[in-house]
């Protein structure tokens, strides 16, 4: 897909839309909407910055597969696994990979959470761009049009 630059309304400056997401849960019901938004943004020509922190960092471990949904919503877990099994819903990793293929998604692993879990960058998936702190993520996210905390 070719890259299209969307002219902003004023000043003759060019600005690409951007979404910034903080992902603070490793559960399926939180990862799915996060990657859906990031990938949809990326295939729409937006940039997407994703910061995985606290329990969200666990989702970046090599080979991670979510074991379930958030505790409060266990009663509905069957609906989700059914949709995944039927193929009507893709897995969160499939959606993410399709977004990553555009080259417009950047993934940051929270350094504090990494230390808390005793993990190193080599324990994380290769699609993680870098380990970052709050200031780095803020600088990446400050010009985002949409910013969300998903937990």
């Amino acid at each position, binding site marked *: 897909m070719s890259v299209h630059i969307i002219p902003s309304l004023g000043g003759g400056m060019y600005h690409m839309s951007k979404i910034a997401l903080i992902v603070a849960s490793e559960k399926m019901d939180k990862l799915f909407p996060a990657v859906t938004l990031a990938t*949809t943004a990326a295939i*729409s020509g937006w940039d997407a910055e994703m910061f995985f922190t606290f329990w969200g960092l666990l989702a970046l471990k090599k080979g991670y597969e979510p074991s379930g949904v958030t505790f409060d919503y266990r009663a509905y877990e069957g609906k989700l696994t059914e*949709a995944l099994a039927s*193929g*009507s*819903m893709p897995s969160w990793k499939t959606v993410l990979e399709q977004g990553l293929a555009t080259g417009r998604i950047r993934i940051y692993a929270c350094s504090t959470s990494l230390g808390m879990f005793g993990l190193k960058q080599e324990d994380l998936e290769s699609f993680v761009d870098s380990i970052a702190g709050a200031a780095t993520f803020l600088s990446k996210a400050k010009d985002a049009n949409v910013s969300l905390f998903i937990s």
Partner: protein
Amino acid sequence: MNADITVDAKFKTCPGPLIALADAVSKAQPGQVVKLLATDPAAPSDVKEWALSVGHTLLAREKSGDVYEIYIGVSG
């Protein structure tokens, strides 16, 4: 309307149809028409917004039974 390429994303939920469409459009030639078949009720609106964002042309949106037929003209 005739299409050069048809993408069947029936019974796939968001973001499946849009991902499938974007993938097909990225492989298509400028001037070709790509038809998306979808049952996701969000597809007509999602495709319209996506086309606007990336600069392809929404040619038509039709409905045949429960299936949306959405036509995209691939830009250069």
